[in-house]
């Protein structure tokens, strides 16, 4: 993908990542809601959907969704910190490093547990 020259810097790419992940999540939501509402009306169809979860392609899509949610979540935290915390650039770098470190450690533990 060609990124125009004035956009080639980390903050712009973070913005685009946040926008695309948000858009994808918003488009996924109606499908997600519809599937869950089947529990009330047609439980058998819901089971059918859930059995699809064993399909590797669906597994990949699921992983993608969790990934999108995580990306949008951390992007959102970044934005809230940037907008609402009057920190110095050094404090922000430290905070970002701490969050990333904590995430790395907890993700490692989580992956071992699963």
């Amino acid at each position, binding site marked *: 993908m060609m990124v125009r020259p004035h956009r080639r810097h980390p903050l712009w790419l973070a913005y685009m990542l946040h926008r695309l992940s948000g858009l994808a999540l*918003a488009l996924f*939501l*109606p499908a997600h*809601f519809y599937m*869950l*509402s089947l529990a*009330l009306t047609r439980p058998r169809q819901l089971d059918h959907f859930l059995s699809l979860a064993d399909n590797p392609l669906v597994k990949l899509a699921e992983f993608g969704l969790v990934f999108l949610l995580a990306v949008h*979540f951390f992007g959102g935290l970044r934005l809230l910190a940037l907008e609402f915390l009057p920190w110095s650039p050094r404090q922000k770098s430290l905070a970002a490093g701490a969050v990333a470190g904590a995430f790395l450690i907890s993700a490692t533990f989580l992956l071992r547990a699963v």
Partner: protein
Amino acid sequence: MLDLRYYMAQRLSAMVMGPLVLGHLAVMIYAIQGGLSSAEILSRTQGSIAWFLFYGAFVVAVSIHAAIGLRVIVHEVTGLAGRWLEVFTWGTGAALLFMGARAVLAVTMP
């Protein structure tokens, strides 16, 4: 295309969702261990006020958040503005809220 009220609704709904997303991720990871079955999930959620409140709050917040987020994207990409942009925003929010409420009720009603 955001006035102060839309902006605050967007940010406040994001703050509400912060802990909810973490909870949801934890639930997902827990649920996929050993495979999913609707009976298994429903037996825990149906009739539970706690899950109703958790996912009810989530649906309200996400409907607001997604509707405003899509509003901004639609305005900046297509140039849609004025009354139709309001119709789009509120329509999207209402549709998400309706579908989300149905899903929450289906999963948590006894």
